[in-house]
């Protein structure tokens, strides 16, 4: 199974040593993305999901970060063995990224056209005029109105949705095999969010690109993703197909996430909130990191770190007392 994965990551760990102590951002995660698949990495902010994606692409500065992994294999290539120059060849061409805040993710003093051109010039062997044509075409493809005019404009002159589209166009520019989308719609209004997601899904369908979606928004996950990977405090706490997990979460944290999503079909007048805050990454709780916030937690949870256990062939959970037994989930799926 891992053999045919487009991206295979095993035992990825990231720490940040600081004056005050060591921040354990990612504590060993495994993940695999198959061609054309959309994998969602879900979790609260600070759980290490963005750091993981940056670490995979080698975009984390070292210092301040220290990264270790057993395997980071992309398309049969060991990414860890590549130097910066070779990585640069992969980034943008094979793996592209879409960032959360398009205003800060775009260079403020460069026209968006030139920023797009850079991708075509670098990865597609085009000359300047070709690149310009391709950029305008790419802008049009993501639904940017009057792309030739936008081409000359600067990021601050565009609306938030437009900027996000530009980022999407930029990611898809070199037809990569994998796109990592880090909270692509969080910074946008809800109506614009939908349009952008639409665009993203259309582009993904059209090109058959694999998508690694990083989000905390389960409705986005529901809309785009095939498989889910729930992270908490640097560890994966639950994985599985989207439908199963959304319907029957096995980890109390996943359940908490689900209940905190406002739904139109239920009549909750108050949102459910997971109590307390994300644990201090410098000083994480013993045992299961989630236990101080967990309503099901027992004595065992405080002492022993639970391991990732298989519930069904496709589902795993890291919990001493999972909410769902494997069979139930399985039968649902079947």
């Amino acid at each position, binding site marked *: 199974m891992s053999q045919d994965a487009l991206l295979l990551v095993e035992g990825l760990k990231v720490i940040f040593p600081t004056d005050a102590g060591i921040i354990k951002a990612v504590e060993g995660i495994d993940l695999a993305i198959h061609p054309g698949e959309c994998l969602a990495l879900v979790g609260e902010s600070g759980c290490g999901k963005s750091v993981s994606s*940056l670490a995979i*692409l080698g*975009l984390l500065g070292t*210092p301040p970060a220290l990264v270790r992994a057993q395997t980071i294999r992309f398309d049969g290539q060991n990414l860890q063995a590549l130097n*910066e*120059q070779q990585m*640069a*060849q*992969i*980034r*943008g*061409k094979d793996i*592209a*990224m879409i*960032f959360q*805040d398009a205003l*800060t*993710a*775009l*260079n*403020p*003093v*460069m026209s968006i056209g030139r*920023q797009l051109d*850079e*991708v075509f010039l*670098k*990865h597609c062997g085009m000359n300047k005029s070709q690149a310009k044509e391709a950029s305008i075409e790419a802008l049009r493809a993501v639904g940017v109105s009057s792309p030739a005019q936008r081409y000359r404009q*600067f990021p*601050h*002159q565009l609306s938030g949705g437009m900027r996000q589209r530009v*980022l999407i166009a*930029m990611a898809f520019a*070199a037809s990569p095999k994998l796109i990592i989308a880090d909270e692509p719609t969080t910074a946008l209004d809800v109506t614009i969010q939908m349009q952008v997601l639409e665009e993203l899904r259309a582009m993904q369908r059209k090109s058959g690109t694999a998508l690694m979606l990083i989000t905390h928004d389960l409705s986005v996950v529901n809309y785009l993703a095939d498989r889910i990977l729930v992270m908490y405090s640097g560890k994966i706490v639950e994985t599985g197909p989207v439908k199963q997990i959304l319907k029957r979460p096995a980890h109390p944290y996943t359940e908490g996430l689900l209940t905190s999503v406002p739904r139109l079909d239920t009549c909750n007048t108050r949102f459910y909130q997971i109590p307390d805050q994300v644990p201090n990454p410098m000083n994480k709780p013993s045992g299961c990191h989630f236990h101080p916030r967990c309503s099901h937690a027992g004595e065992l949870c405080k002492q022993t770190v639970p391991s990732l256990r298989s519930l069904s062939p496709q589902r795993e959970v890291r919990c001493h007392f999972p909410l769902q037994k494997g069979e139930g989930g399985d039968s649902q799926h079947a």
Partner: protein
Amino acid sequence: MRKGYVLERILYTVFIFFIVITLNFFIPRIGVEDPAERYYPPQGNLTDTEYSIIKQLTRKQYGFDVSGWQQYLRYLSQLSRGDLGTSLQAGSPKVSTLIAQRLPWTLVLSLSNMLISVTLGLLLGTSAAWNRGKFADRALMNASTVMTALPAFFLALVFSLYMGFEWGWFPAYTEPDMVASFDWSWRAIAQVARNAALPVISMSIGGVISYAQGTRNSVIAVSQEDFITTARAKGMSTRTVKYRHVLRNAMLPIVTSLGMSVSGLIGGSVVIEQIFNWNGMGTLFLTANNTNDYPLMMGIMLFLSSFALLANLVTDLLYSLLDPRVSAGGGRR
């Protein structure tokens, strides 16, 4: 849109200029009812009639023979003809003539100071930022904390003492024939370089350090911006990222501080000029001060302010060229 911004900046500059002119008119008049009391010529054994004649003449000479408003209007019309007034020095030279004589020599110091500060500062600052935390960086940061606490005039004295007096590497004071015998020959240029060495070195040490530190911090701050990650994620080579994405943005605050040093270009070397006996605007001003040559002092003040205003305007416009966000609205501040 951009035209509008340029026009707005120019109009604004003119407005401020007007305020500065007015201030310049009023400051020397603070507390002066009768200029004859303040500026009358050296004491002698004057009889009462002689003294009253002198008073009258002095009043007329300073334009105090008419009412305040008329004085102001006269001042404006005089300025509009480019006339900065007449110095009280022997022979009543025009203030503008005196400034024109001294300005080039001050510019020799301050321009080479700026050139050295900016180029060395940028080079050191960027290389420190690229090698963040390594030896060069730490050396620069340590040097900067030490050097910013050492005022330039102290360094100037120390350099003058050692490199000038003790070791005789450079002239400890400006050679008196430097200005006089300057004729654009290589010999004369070498002489200027030799004489400018100590003043420029003592001025530019602080400049290099502060530009280097500013550049370093700016480059580091920009390197941590999201769009730099975007650029890297696009697969841009390290070189492209550094020079096209980081530096361009990191230059923006540097341009602002450059603008500020340009506006202090002429007035900034008063103390250094005094120490090295350099015949520039600074010594001209100190001389004017010591001899109570108010017309000259105020002429220099106005010249410096106008220069600073112009420098600010150019900086603003340059900044708006570099940063498209500015002319669209808001300001850089």
